């Protein structure tokens, strides 16, 4: 930051926060001036949302200071933060669908008669209507929130912030679900708040929006503060460089494998409101990386191809034949396997043994006279477990007792058992330790060598660049870039990932 003219309204110094040993923020600095619109940018997992929740009092930092109006404060719950004039609008809606608009605005701080816990019902509604008209809108504040559009819900959230006399407003990706006109409206409102002296922290993935609305921008990377820039003194290229600016020192065991027949081709996949016009092909022996930021809808595309949420439109060819894939079962019959991102939710049955988890997808193979042949099942499971070097006390061990890395291997084992020809991996190494990561990468290389076609969704640019033969980039449901292994750089990918529409 070049020069500080006024004392900051909010300053964070040396903030660190970790969740279960994973560092979300390390020694972070952040400063906010009154009446400024301050953008906060960074890749997935850069720590933006964590910082926001610390400012809002939802999380407490492990170390560091929060200074508001020259006073060191501790925000040990959201109420304290609110009382300091901080309001937050989260990505996930924080509204009560069955309550009316006015109550949504005033929940937690209902206007009451002095000394009596009784709500001034009529005044509350009048005040709600006034706040909404301040935002330049008209709404029936007696109607329920259910049925409002996302843009209208955002107005309610903004009115909520106003009702708390917020001096600092934090908005986490407020534009991600809005149409272009609605975004323009929202920006108009933000500027209005700025004129009233409200400071706005604006978290966004869309760089063009940052340049349109913000006065300054702070860049985070891997949980660390990188820099704060005046928007007038920076460029899109510089911001991208700062966001991704790590050196690619991790070695990836990428094998050169001949890429041959087309195994999967999708054309014009659409799913209403999620993604549109997705076309690509995937070949034998190829690792195709699918990159993008949160909200790019990569998982949704993968789940559409795998038949979990079949697309509304579009065609899927498998080994050159047009196929109708309307369920995971149909996808598995075509030799597909999908390893989901959330191991605990979708990948493993935690209370069951490792053996049972591994054989879940292929149990039918071991059935003899309506009963499962336990010996065969055990042999099969231990074979795969050995191949993947899953570290366990025994295959009877429950999946929940394994480390994150071994859980991930167990999920892989479960799907490799089906001998897939097309393997979709959704964030295969998220949240696992370096050693296991390398093992998973090694395994991916081996599989490709055996002729498996792999579609890898990953939010880690080094992983995408290190492992992929070809890289696809998505942004908000559109394919916005395709790069060969030779072409792909972090900067190019990030540029495509922050682009709203197809170039």
């Amino acid at each position, binding site marked *: 930051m070049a020069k500080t003219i006024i004392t900051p309204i909010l300053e964070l110094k040396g903030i660190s926060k970790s969740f279960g040993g994973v560092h979300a923020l390390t020694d972070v600095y952040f400063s906010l001036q009154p009446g400024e619109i301050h953008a906060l940018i960074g890749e997935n997992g850069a720590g933006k949302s964590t910082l926001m929740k610390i400012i809002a009092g939802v999380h407490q930092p492990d170390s560091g200071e929060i200074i508001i109006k020259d006073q060191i404060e501790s925000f040990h719950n*959201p109420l304290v933060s609110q009382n300091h004039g901080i309001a937050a609008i989260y990505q996930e*809606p924080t509204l009560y669908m*069955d309550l009316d608009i006015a109550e949504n605005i005033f*929940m*937690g701080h209902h206007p009451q008669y002095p000394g009596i816990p009784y709500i001034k*019902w009529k005044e509350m509604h009048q005040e709600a209507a006034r706040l909404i008209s301040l935002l330049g809108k008209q709404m029936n504040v007696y109607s329920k929130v259910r*049925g409002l*559009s996302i843009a209208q819900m955002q107005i309610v959230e903004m009115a909520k912030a106003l009702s708390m006399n917020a001096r600092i407003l934090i908005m986490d990706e407020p534009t991600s679900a809005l149409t272009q006109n609605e975004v323009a409206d929202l920006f108009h409102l933000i500027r209005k708040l700025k004129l009233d002296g409200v400071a706005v922290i604006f978290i966004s993935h869309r760089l063009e929006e940052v340049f349109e609305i913000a006065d300054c921008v702070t860049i985070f990377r891997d949980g660390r503060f990188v820099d704060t820039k005046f928007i007038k003194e920076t460029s899109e290229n510089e911001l991208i460089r700062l966001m991704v600016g790590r050196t690619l020192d991790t070695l990836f065991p990428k094998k050169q494998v001949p890429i041959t027949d087309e195994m999967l081709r999708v054309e014009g996949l659409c799913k209403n409101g999620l993604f549109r016009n997705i076309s690509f092909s995937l070949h034998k022996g190829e690792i195709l990386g699918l990159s993008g930021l949160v909200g790019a809808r990569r998982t949704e595309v993968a789940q559409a191809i795998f038949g979990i949420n079949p697309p509304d439109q579009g065609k899927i060819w498998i080994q050159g034949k047009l196929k109708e894939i309307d369920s995971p079962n149909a996808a598995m019959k075509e030799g597909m396997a999908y390893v989901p991102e959330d191991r605990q939710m979708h990948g493993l049955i935690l209370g069951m043994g490792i053996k049972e988890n591994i054989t879940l997808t292929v149990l039918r193979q071991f059935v003899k006279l309506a009963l499962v042949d336990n010996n065969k099942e055990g042999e099969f499971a231990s074979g795969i477990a050995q191949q993947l070097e899953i570290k366990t006390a025994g295959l009877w061990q429950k999946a929940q007792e394994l480390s994150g890395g071994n859980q991930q291997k167990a999920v892989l084992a479960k799907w490799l058992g089906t001998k897939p020809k097309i393997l979709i991996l959704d964030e295969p190494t998220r949240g696992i330790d370096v050693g296991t990561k390398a093992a998973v990468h090694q395994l991916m290389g081996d599989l490709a060598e055996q002729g498996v076609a792999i579609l890898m969704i990953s939010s880690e640019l080094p992983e995408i660049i290190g492992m992929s033969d070809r890289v696809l980039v998505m942004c908000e449901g559109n394919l916005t870039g395709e790069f060969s292994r030779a072409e792909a750089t972090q900067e190019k990918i990030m540029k495509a990932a922050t682009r709203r529409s197809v170039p």
Partner: protein
Amino acid sequence: MTAKKPGHSFLQKLFTNLARSRELAILALMVVIMAIVSLRTSAFFTFNNFKDILLDISMVSIVAIGQMMVMITTGIDISVGSILAVSAMAVGSIVRANPEVNPFIAILIGIGIGMLLGSFNGFVTTFMKIPPIITTLGTLSFFRGIVYIISGGTWVMAHQLPEGIKEFTMRTTFGIPFLVLFAIFLGIIFYFFVNRVPIGRQIYAIGSNYTAAVLAGIRVKLVNFIVYVISGALAGIAGVMWLSRYAIAANGTATGFELQTVAACVIGGVSVFGGSGTIPGVFMGAFFIGMINNAINLIGISEFWKQAFYGLAIILAVITDAVINNRLRRRKNN
């Protein structure tokens, strides 16, 4: 606000209206049933019969108020029948030994007992994070055990109870018994509580969107605890009413009562997924049950059907809700 598009067919319109006002839907259904029963027997549409129905449902209504609040938070309290029985037995034993105790003091004692037992439920579910169905299933049995411990296996019989206790619920004002008036009084009090008192509104907030409630700085644990205390208190009150109306405190008092309170709530439109429910709806749900009970007796259908009816009514009400919600959602998506 964008108004919902009018339905294309009569059926759609009907669905929309039923979904909008549950009270209206039950009312319509009740009118139909009343008409049918009246045609079968002239004993139905009489002042005295309605008085009987109201007396019968008063206790269910009182306890269902608390059940509703618990259900709005996405919980359930199936120990209410046992709390009621503890209150009836404890208060019965006290007034047997001290006949001079004023009925209103007896009610206060009942409230105290109910709050104590309710706070046990609230503590275990809220602070020990045990699912409410498990907590209250446990206390259903635990509290019933306390009834036996207090009574030593014997009953408090009618002749052992002082007149003051036995008659106060039946004392009439303009021909309406005290018990009915008292239930209405509690209904009004709690109507204002859940609609106009901040904590009452926060009950809806935590059931509707728990995360949002936390982020709004609502003391979610306190609110969650309080609903169980209130539920217990109302069951405690109902225990004293039961003692008075039936002039007996038995070990098996109010066994299965929880089912009726849940039925009243669910039929009355309280969402089994939390977040919504109204006092008028619950009272109508209770009246609906009372009316069917009464009709079963008058028409001469076997008593044995009642039990089956409660269970089926709950399931039917929930299915109706699910169907209506699905229809609305599908229409919204199209």
